[in-house]
């Protein structure tokens, strides 16, 4: 019995194709059953996220199973055979691929943790619908151990890799936990929305949105469960916010040093974090010189994100060493022969050692 993996991801297929191949959560059980009816496929797990669609399975004829699976995918999702290039892995390669996916090494945001939860969910779904057995159970359990080990013993998760994440990291280094932090958004653009969502996801509350067009402010405020204020009124709310995200399309600065100095004199020692993601900039650079005020513009945040990404990329080889070391100790358990297989085929081998293509 061998294991295999077939799939597309953000590196091999554009989003237009990935969204056509994406399998809705509700449809996964049906697909699992259908895949298990293909030729020699005896076990299957389907992983479908915004960045990848992958099928893991076990079969006595992996090459045949992969061919059948490609035909199934092409027919079912109505894509032309030459339109999509699936990657296909067997045995050690399939296991290594899954271990790298679980470790976040194959993710669009290197080292991200969301994929770990998505893998667990995909496995749980397959398990609850009876499409996993010994091979998939061993393979996925081991991938979870590898994923945890890589994250705990390397710095693959360290550092911010996006503007939003960099802003959140800085906010946490100023305020500690963001629970209860109050955020004001000046200018209801897409960048403001993304940054505010990052802050809200870490506990920030009391969102105040101000925009020249009040309708847009109300719309974003509703989305973030906040409050909209008119553009003439935002300065009156400065005393009560901890973080300001500004991204107006104004051709001149809208937040000035004297305004902030005046506000800080009333804030009784509370810090203020300003995030200026507008071009041209909304906030006077001199604001950063005010005691207890921290100002970051889009280039400065991008630089932190770039450095974070570079640091994570330097960790890839370390992560691969961790995986290799783990496997040299434990082997790929899903590829070890079961007692029944050993007796029927007369093979010798200790449990946990890789014996491929039985």
């Amino acid at each position, binding site marked *: 019995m061998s294991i295999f993996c077939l799939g597309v991801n953000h590196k091999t297929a554009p989003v237009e194709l990935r969204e056509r191949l994406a399998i809705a959560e509700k449809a996964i059980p049906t697909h699992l059953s259908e895949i298990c009816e293909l030729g020699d496929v005896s076990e299957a797990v389907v992983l479908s996220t915004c960045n990848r669609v992958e099928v893991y399975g076990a079969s006595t004829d992996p090459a045949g199973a992969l061919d059948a699976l490609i035909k199934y995918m092409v027919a079912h999702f109505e894509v032309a055979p030459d339109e999509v290039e699936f990657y296909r892995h067997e045995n050690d390669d399939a296991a290594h691929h899954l271990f790298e996916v679980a470790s976040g090494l194959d993710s669009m945001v290197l080292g991200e943790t969301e994929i770990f939860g998505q893998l667990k969910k995909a496995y749980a779904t397959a398990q609850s619908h009876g499409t996993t057995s010994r091979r998939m159970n061993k393979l996925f359990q081991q991938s979870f151990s590898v994923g945890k080990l890589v994250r705990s013993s390397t*710095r693959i998760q*360290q550092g911010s890799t996006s503007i939003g994440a960099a802003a959140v990291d*800085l906010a*946490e*280094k*100023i*305020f*500690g936990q963001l629970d209860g932090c109050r955020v004001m958004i000046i200018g209801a653009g897409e960048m403001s929305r993304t940054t505010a969502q990052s802050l809200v996801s870490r506990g920030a509350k009391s969102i105040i949105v101000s925009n020249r067009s009040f309708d847009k402010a109300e719309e974003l405020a509703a989305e973030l469960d906040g409050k909209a204020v008119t553009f003439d009124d935002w300065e009156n709310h400065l005393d009560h916010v901890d973080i300001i995200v500004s991204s107006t399309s104004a051709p001149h600065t809208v937040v000035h040093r004297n305004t902030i100095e005046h506000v*800080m004199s009333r804030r*009784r*020692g509370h*810090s203020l974090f300003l995030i200026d993601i507008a071009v041209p900039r909304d906030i006077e650079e001199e604001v*950063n010189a005010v*005691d*207890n005020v*921290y100002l*970051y513009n889009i280039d*400065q945040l991008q*630089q*932190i994100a770039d450095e974070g990404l570079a640091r994570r990329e330097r960790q890839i080889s370390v992560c691969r060493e961790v995986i290799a070391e783990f496997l040299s100790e434990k082997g790929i358990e899903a590829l070890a022969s079961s007692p029944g297989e050993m007796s029927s085929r007369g093979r010798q081998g200790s449990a946990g050692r890789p014996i491929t293509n039985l």
Partner: protein
Amino acid sequence: MDNFYLISSTVFFLVGFVLAVVALRSGGKQVGGLNIGIAVAGLVFQSLFLYERGELHGRCPITNGAEVLVFISWSIVIMYLVLGRAFRLSLLGVFSMPIVFLFQSIAIVYLLAADPGAQRPEKLDPWLEMHAAMSLLAYGAYGLSFVAGIMYLVQDRQIKSHQPGRLFRSLPPIRFLSDALFRLLIIGTLLLTVGIVSAFFMEKLPDALHLIVSWAVWIVYAGILAVHLLKRLAPRILSLSAIAAFIFALATLTAL
């Protein structure tokens, strides 16, 4: 034997500091745990030294400059172990260790060069002991506020410069640091107040210089706290004040 305890303790703090710096430079995550283990080991030897000296003198072992420095170091370590974790500032120990190492190194040199030996009092005055112990414990809290102030300034600089360095991730959030700094100043001032009040009950009042110095230190710290409570000093100003005040407090010790 007491010198052996003191040297052992000093070596522990030096090793702790070096290991913590190495761990911080490599981005290690276990700085806090490592630091606490070494600080506890150093504290045990510090305590053994102070116990031996206490037995020698038959009183609280603060009869000379070396013992005073060790007692202040002991207070700093105790304060760090008790308050550092409560304030979520395990890294406070890393920054405290160089000060403790420096103080104890001076004490070792002093004791090895000219140990004045036993200074047994004719009669033990518990209020004198209370005065001295509380005052030096206050110095421990002030020493730690000095450390928290430095940590605040370093982290503030890192964030303001827009180029967060290696220490950025390891140092605590600046709000935690400014809160801890304020609390340490309050704890230190309460302890010093108890120490000064105890002096009024002593059988024989300390000499004028001693009284002036004690009051001067108390006025400086109480003044900082009063201004902060009334005007809410910016944390950077509060940090600078705590640093300057501790340097002043140390200078007054040399005057005594």
